[in-house]
C-alpha cells in the first residue's frame, strides 16, 4: 500500500517538500493542505509588482493547479488544518475530519510579529503575504497618496522602494538608527537612504510606533515623534515562526522560537519533519540557531524534508545566510555578520573596507562597489561581509557565503584570483582589496 505523506502548508517549503517526496516515491499519496487559494507562487515578487517593475501578478506563479494535479500532488486549497496527533498519526482538517498519515511535514511558515499597539485592527493596514490579497491591495494603491512603512526590515526596504516607484509619498518609521540596522552598517546603507530621499521618501529613524489612528480605516500612524497622516500603512514587522500546531502537538521548539530539527529536517516527533520559516537552523559561524530566512532557504529545506520523509537521504547544512536586494537605486547585500550585529553579540572581529569598481575603469556603465569584510582576529577566518553597489552584489554575496561556510581566511581572499574582462570585471576585485586592507589594519 502506498505511504501517505501529508504536508501542512503550500509555500516554498511545503511545495518543495511535496515535489521532492514525489520524486523519491512516485507511488506515494501526497496531500498538501493550505488555507490559501493558491500554492507555488513567489510572494517575494509582490513588492516588484506593486512597484510596476513586474507588469502583473500572474508572472509570479510557477505552475498551474493542473500541473500539480498532473504530478500526482493532491492539494487541498482553502483548507485549514486544526491540529495533529503524533501518537495516532492523524491530522484534524476542517471540513474533512481526521486524516491519517504515515509521514507528516510541517511547513506552516511565519506570521508577522504583532505590532502590539492600539488600532492594529483598523482597515488600511497591509501585511504583504498572500498573492490574492496583494492583487486587491494593488488596486487600492492606485488611490493612495501617502503611505507609512512600519519597520525597515528587508520587506520594508523593498516596499519603500516600490511605493516610491509608484509615485506614492512614503514615510518609513523604524526604532533603529538606520535602515536594516541589525543586518547592515550605516556606511553600507547610506546610499540607499540618500536615494530614497531623492525619490521623496521621508525617513524617521529612532522612531517607535505607538498606534494606528482612524475610524474604521487608518488615517494616521502615531509614533514617538508625533503623528504621520496616511491612507495606508504597510506593516513589515519581524517574521515569527508559525509553530502553533507543532507546539500544540508537543513538537519541541528552540531558543530561536522555531521548530527544532536535525540536518534531515526531522523534528522531535516520530515521522514528523518540518521546513521553512517555522523551523530554526544553526548558523555556520556561531552554531547558534537562527529563524526567518529567505525563500531559497525554505525551498531547499523543503526538498530535504520531502526527500527524507519519502525514504530518501538528504542533509541540510548550517546556514551562512547570504542576502541581497535592490533598495532605492542601489543593490545591497552581504553574508552572516554586520559590524553592528557582531558588536551587539560581542563577537571579536576585525574589519576591512574597500571601494572598488564593477567593470574596467574605462568601460561604460562602470560603478563603484563598496565591500566590507569581517574576520576573526585570531584565525583570520571570514565571519561576515556587506556590500553596496549597482551590480555584481548577489554573486559576491553567494561567493562569500561559501567562503564563510568553508572557513576561508582573509589571507586567502587577499590573494584570490579574479576574472578580468572589461565589461564584467575590473583588474582588482573589490573583495580582495577589502581583505588586503583588513590585513593591513592588523599589521599583517
Amino acid at each position, binding site marked *: 500500500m502506498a505511504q501517505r505523506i501529508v504536508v501542512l502548508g503550500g509555500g516554498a517549503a511545503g511545495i518543495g517538500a511535496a515535489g521532492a517526496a514525489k520524486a523519491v516515491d512516485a507511488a506515494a499519496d501526497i496531500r498538501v493542505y493550505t488555507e490559501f487559494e493558491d500554492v507555488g507562487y513567489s510572494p517575494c515578487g509582490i513588492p516588484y509588482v506593486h512597484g510596476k517593475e513586474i507588469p502583473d501578478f500572474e508572472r509570479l506563479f510557477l505552475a498551474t493547479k493542473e500541473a500539480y494535479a498532473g504530478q500526482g500532488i493532491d492539494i487541498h486549497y482553502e483548507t485549514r488544518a486544526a491540529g495533529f496527533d503524533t501518537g495516532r498519526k492523524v491530522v484534524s482538517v476542517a471540513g474533512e475530519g481526521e486524516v491519517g498519515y504515515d509521514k507528516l511535514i510541517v511547513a506552516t511558515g511565519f506570521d508577522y510579529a504583532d505590532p502590539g499597539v492600539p488600532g492594529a485592527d483598523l482597515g488600511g493596514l497591509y501585511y504583504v503575504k498572500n498573492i490574492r490579497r496583494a492583487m486587491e491591495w494593488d488596486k487600492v494603491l492606485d488611490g493612495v497618496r501617502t503611505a507609512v512603512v512600519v519597520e525597515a526590515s528587508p520587506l520594508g526596504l523593498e516596499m519603500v522602494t516600490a511605493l516610491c516607484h509608484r509615485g506614492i509619498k512614503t514615510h518609513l518609521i523604524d*526604532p*533603529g*538608527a*538606520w535602515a536594516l*540596522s*541589525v543586518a547592515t*552598517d*550605516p*556606511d553600507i546603507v*547610506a546610499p540607499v537612504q540618500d536615494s530614497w530621499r531623492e525619490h521623496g521618501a521621508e525617513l524617521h*529613524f*529612532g*522612531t*517607535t510606533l505607538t498606534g494606528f489612528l482612524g475610524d474604521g480605516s487608518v488615517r494616521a500612524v502615531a509614533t*514617538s515623534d508625533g503623528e504621520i497622516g496616511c491612507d495606508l500603512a504597510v506593516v513589515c514587522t519581524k517574521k515569527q515562526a508559525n509553530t502553533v500546531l507543532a507546539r500544540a502537538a508537543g513538537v*519541541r521548539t*528552540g*531558543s*530561536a522560537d*522555531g521548530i*527544532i*530539527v*536535525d*540536518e534531515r529536517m526531522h523534528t522531535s516527533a516520530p515521522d514528523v519533519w518540518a521546513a521553512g520559516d517555522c*523551523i*530554526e*537552523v*544553526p548558523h*555556520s559561524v*556561531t*552554531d*547558534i*540557531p537562527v529563524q526567518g530566512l529567505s525563500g531559497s532557504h525554505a525551498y531547499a529545506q523543503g526538498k530535504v524534508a520531502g526527500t527524507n520523509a519519502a525514504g530518501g537521504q538528504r*542533509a541540510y*547544512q*548550517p546556514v551562512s545566510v547570504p542576502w541581497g536586494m535592490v533598495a532605492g537605486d542601489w543593490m545591497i547585500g552581504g553574508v552572516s555578520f554586520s*559590524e*553592528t*550585529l557582531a*558588536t*551587539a*553579540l*560581542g*563577537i*571579536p572581529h576585525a574589519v576591512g573596507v574597500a571601494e572598488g569598481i564593477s567593470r574596467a575603469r574605462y568601460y561604460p556603465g562602470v560603478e563603484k562597489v563598496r565591500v566590507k569584510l569581517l574576520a576573526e582576529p585570531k584565525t583570520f577566518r571570514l565571519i561576515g561581509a556587506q556590500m553596496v553597489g549597482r551590480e555584481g552584489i548577489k554573486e559576491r554575496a553567494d561567493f562569500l557565503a561559501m567562503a564563510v*561556510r*568553508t*572557513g576561508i581566511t582573509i589571507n586567502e581572499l587577499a590573494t584570490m584570483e579574479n576574472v578580468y574582462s572589461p565589461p564584467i570585471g575590473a583588474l582588482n576585485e573589490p573583495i580582495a582589496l577589502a581583505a588586503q586592507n583588513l590585513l593591513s589594519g592588523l599589521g599583517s
Partner: protein
Amino acid sequence: MIAAQEKIAAKYGVTPPRRPRGQEIFWLRVYVPAYRAVPWPVRSAIMHRLPGSHRMTWTRTQRP
C-alpha cells in the same frame, strides 16, 4: 542592539539611535556592561546550552 548602534554610529559619524527610555535605560546601563564583561567564549557556551536545532545532528562542511 541600541548599545551596538551607538558605538557604530559614533565610528561612522552618523546619527545615533534615539535616547533610551524606561526599561531600556536599565538594559543599557546595567545589562550591556555586564554582558560585555563576559568573554565571547563564555557567552557562546551559555547560548549553546539552550535548547535548539544546534544541539541536534548536523554535519559541517569539512575542508580537505
